[in-house]
């Protein structure tokens, strides 16, 4: 399992990072840009950066090269946008986090713990009937552990969108120019 280099393995899926002004309404404008053109957002993650006036939006979307070019250009055109980058164009680290609540009767627990161990997951809550586990990784890893836990009975999951950073010293500069 190659963990960190499977960016955009499905050729039409792209992870895009956008640096925007951290103020109300900006996310609505980004979302409106997608909905106005009928483009879907598969996942979305927003958080403030080391500069409190700048937020980083990481979104996963699908489309051919032409659609991607339009998305990139329109995101760049938004006045609140500082920088847009298709993370697939560079070597990058991508992560998602998932919380999984599993049915865990006594008999099944040791097997469940073994699986969690292999995936370097963390048990964050235990009750008499359930275990809640936190797993971080790329999409493939999350998919794999979900598959393995499925037979035990998954009661609920909560999943973040993808976040990504370029490898090495390169960064997305957020300064207005």
């Amino acid at each position: 399992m190659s963990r960190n280099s499977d960016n955009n393995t499905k050729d039409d899926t792209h992870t895009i990072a956008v640096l925007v002004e951290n103020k109300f309404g900006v996310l609505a404008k980004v979302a409106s840009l997608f909905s106005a053109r009928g483009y879907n957002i598969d996942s979305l993650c927003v958080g403030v950066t080391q500069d409190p006036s700048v937020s980083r939006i990481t979104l996963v979307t699908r489309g051919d090269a032409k659609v991607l070019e339009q998305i990139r250009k329109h995101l760049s055109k938004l006045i609140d946008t500082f920088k847009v980058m298709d993370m697939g164009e560079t070597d990058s680290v991508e992560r998602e986090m998932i919380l999984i609540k599993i049915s865990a009767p006594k008999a099944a627990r040791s097997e469940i713990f073994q699986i969690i161990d292999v995936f370097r997951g963390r048990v964050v809550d235990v009750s008499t009937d359930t275990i809640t586990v936190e797993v971080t990784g790329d999409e493939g890893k999350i998919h794999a552990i979900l598959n393995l836990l499925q037979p035990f009975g998954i009661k609920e999951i909560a999943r973040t969108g993808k976040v990504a950073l370029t490898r090495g010293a390169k960064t997305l500069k957020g300064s207005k120019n």
Partner: protein
Amino acid sequence: MELNGSQIMIEELKAAGIEMAFGIPGGAIMPFYDELLKADFPHILTRHEQGAAHMADGYARVSGKVAIVVTTSGPGATNLITGLANAQMDSVPLIAVTGQVATNMIGTDAFQEADVYGCSIPVTKFNWLIKDVNEIQHVTREAIRMATTGRPGPVLLDFPKDIQITKAEYTPRESAGSPLPAPRQYPELDMEGIDKLIEAIERAERPVIIGGAGIIKSGASEELAKFAKAAGIPVINTLLGLGGFPGTDELFLGMPGMHGTAYANFALCECDLLINLGARFDDRVTGKVSSFCPNATIAHVDIDDAEIDKRVHTHIPILGNVRDVLITLNERLTPGDYDEWRQTWTDWKANYPLQYDWDGSIKPQYVIDQIQEITEGNGIYVTGVGQHQMWAAQFIRFNEPKTWVTSGGLGTMGFGLPAAIGAKFARPEKDVWLIDGDGSFAMTLVELATAATYNVPVKVAILNNAYLGMVRQWQELFFEKRYSHSHYPENPDFGTIAEGYGVKGINITDVNEVRNSLETAAEHDGPVVLNFLVNKEENVWPMVPAGAGNDEMQLAPPSREAKS
């Protein structure tokens, strides 16, 4: 000095040279209106907010200047949406100032509250909800800059009532009307692209220029004429580019696309180099993209990066201001030798002219021809949307830019009358003619009251066929003449309606009265409505059916074509 929020905004607007407002007051904008009055800010009270937006739109298109549109919250603001969308599609600058309920009431479903910030995101270039009096100065400056620079467009300032009256310390600009800072992403001149284009022009045997709204907006008409004439390349103007090149010039090929001239579409099909100067390859221009300019190298100059490669693949993209690019091109260009090509398109022009039959009824094209004759192409021509708009685009020969006001991208019926009023306010020395359809006119005719109140002498020619004519034409051609709800058999008497508004109204039923009535209208000192009861089933030709390629253009009704 200490001012309230409304005063600060007005100071900033005045400092930027903005000197016109259109709008209607209401509860949530009353403090701002109070300050407009005290500041003696010129304001035109309209009858509907959509009319106010179209007036500002028409005003901007002919003057290049931006006006503000002022409405109250809720319905006042939502009535603006069509006007904003129209300006957005055609890249027209205007600044909407909408009242909003007080900040502590936002989100409570207060009286006349609407999420105008949310509603206007997709129909503005940019918008703001002002939540702090201290940001008004900055936001107003940004709004003016955004509206007027780069690719222009409408912006909206949603202005809560409490912020309008909150006081703050205000430091005026150093000098009134000081130039605005350059937009953030103004592209630098792409010299590499220009070099490639010059090479392509030298290599080409059958080049064509297509000039769009970018020619008008960047003020590049003279540079375009210089370029086309020096190079000997014929010019097509898109619907919004009309006026960008003299309509009487031998190099002019008219409008392309769905209802373009035959020779423009032939030229597009046959050219080996298409030089697109500030047009956005609208679907009504290209027809089916796969058969658009099939043999041509395509160069596209545009100020908006997102337009390049959007619909038509471009071989030579040049990001930049059309005028700047043309100036550089003109410095470098060597005259071409396209004699064979010139012969070809000259023959097309001679053999496939725009024409219409003469059968004793009032032909709409004839009325437009007569308007063209009495104004000699020196008027300002405004339209609604539909058949009459296409005929006007075909038959009026424009002498100069910014004399053609039409709703291109959005195709907004009802645009005409308010836009004509706005145009007349901007250029009072010009004769402003509105060529409208009965369907379009009826949508906003309430603004006749505005024309009467302010005595705005616009001349309205309604080409009244008692149909939604373009819909009827499509139903005739593509829906086996099933005229589903496109007929207005009980159309009102528009002449009498005009009189009711205090506007001179004349109904014309006889073709021999056309010329006289037009002259009467031209001489009348005030607004006039001429209601021409025209041939009901006249169609616009040529026509490229929707979704077909420009090579599938029909020149005339199928029956007539078969005969000839």
